């Protein structure tokens, strides 16, 4: 499975053009096809290695969820990306495809407040349970008060 084969398959199945940059095949997906693409990446493109999952806050333009998975034998790197509508922070889970998505999605929930629908155990991972807000949101100030410490 080369990058060119993968792009062709993605074009046929999802009707989107995968962009190759720096050795990474980036695929922009609608949220509804997030899990479906995950399954194709896992089963057909052979991306068994789950590298990381995170998000970027684009302020008025909503949150973007990124997930990097790889086929280590074929050295194929796929970056899945999806843009959530502004004000909406819900994304389907990938935990049923890669067990590594468990902690990564929890971290993403903790930091961005994105609710991963279908995650078996979605709770904060790095911050304490009673924490208010999600620090990596752009509207969360660095000096946000936190009693009794600050």
């Amino acid at each position, binding site marked *: 499975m080369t990058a060119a084969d993968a792009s062709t398959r993605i074009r046929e199945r999802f009707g989107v053009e995968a962009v190759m940059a720096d050795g990474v095949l980036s695929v922009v997906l609608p949220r509804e096809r997030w899990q479906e693409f995950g399954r194709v990446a896992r089963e057909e493109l052979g991306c068994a*290695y789950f590298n*990381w999952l995170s998000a*970027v806050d684009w302020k008025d333009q909503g949150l973007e969820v990124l997930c*990097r998975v790889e086929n280590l034998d074929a050295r194929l790197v796929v970056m899945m990306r999806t843009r959530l509508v502004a004000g909406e922070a819900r994304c389907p889970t990938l935990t049923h495809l890669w*067990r*590594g998505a468990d902690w990564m999605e929890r971290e993403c929930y903790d930091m961005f407040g994105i609710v991963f629908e279908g995650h078996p155990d979605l709770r904060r*991972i790095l911050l304490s349970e009673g924490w208010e807000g999600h620090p*990596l949101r752009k509207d969360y100030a660095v000096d946000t008060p936190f009693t009794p410490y600050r």
Partner: protein
Amino acid sequence: MNTQTQVVELGYGGNERLMLNMGPQHPSSHGVFRMILTLAGETVVAVDAVIGYLHRCHEKLGETLTYAQYPSIASKTDYVAAMTAELAYVSAVERVGKIEVPKRAQYLRVIAAELQRIASHCLWLGTWCLDMGGAIGGGSTVFLYCMREREMILDRFEELTGARLLYGFHQVGGTRYDVPAGWDTKVRATVDFMEKRIDEYEAMLEGNAFFLVRTQGVGVISRELAQEVGVVGPLIRGSGVNYDVRRAEPYSSYRDFDFRVPVETAGDCYARYRVRMVEFRESIRIIRQALDGLPDGPISSRPGVKSVGQVRVPKGEGYARVEGPRGEVGCYLVSDGGPKPYRLKWRGASFTNLAVLPHIIPGHKVADVVAIMGSVDPVFGEVDR
């Protein structure tokens, strides 16, 4: 006074479950980490790992510091391997900013990274053997031997950068310091000495029946699980996957060096131990080659840090990764063209390596938990960031 007696049925039926808190201050974590173990007798049936005690929100901090300021903070993510943590950050900035790094600086980075790998593995081996207890190498013998050798490398780093733990050696575009006079001779002497010591460690451990019993067949990570959870470094190579960033995506002139990537297939603690022992020797080989071939020329494509002003990175994004002692360490960086990153994501090796624990610990005895956790070699600064 209530004189009624209350009878409590203890029910020794064998189905009791005991919840045991291991940590957050357990000595074997060498950091702050809590595991809530559910026990049936002495066997662990479930693990809930609680992390975040060392969380400083490096990613938010990275958004508030300029590209010139952050590298010395980056070293505080994985403080046992500060050299490779810094390297991950500056590599990401260089990738997004398309900044060239002179050949001499690339070689210096390799020497620093490989010395760091040896120092980090020394700390891992020593603490792991210490955790597994008195039967191995007479209590703290292996620990003290390893610390002694690690000191020699820290001395070399002190001569190079003036610091022993957190170095600030890397800067965007190159390195901050060149090697002092006579340093290469000292490094050669250090690695020659190390090479002999590694033979001694192996003789001490591999001839020890207790060590073998406690590590072989314990904490097996299957090839599939390793990839799914995204474990990296000696863990994934101990599970039969030939994945090393230095090979998969060579950076900083790693193409120039001849070295071997050890792979073991058993996936147990002993396999991970074997991988690291070979890595010791391969790192020494790389250091010798890099010292032999060290090119002349500038050490940075940018002016020194005192006059650096601000590094400007054009709009864009990129992910750069390096092979740290614990595996793939990467930074995903988004720039909006300003003096600071718009978004910085740390992909820490220890975070995913630790995430495998709940999958492999159930079924083992409590004593094995310590051996398994030590074989994972987590650094909690990097887990919690």
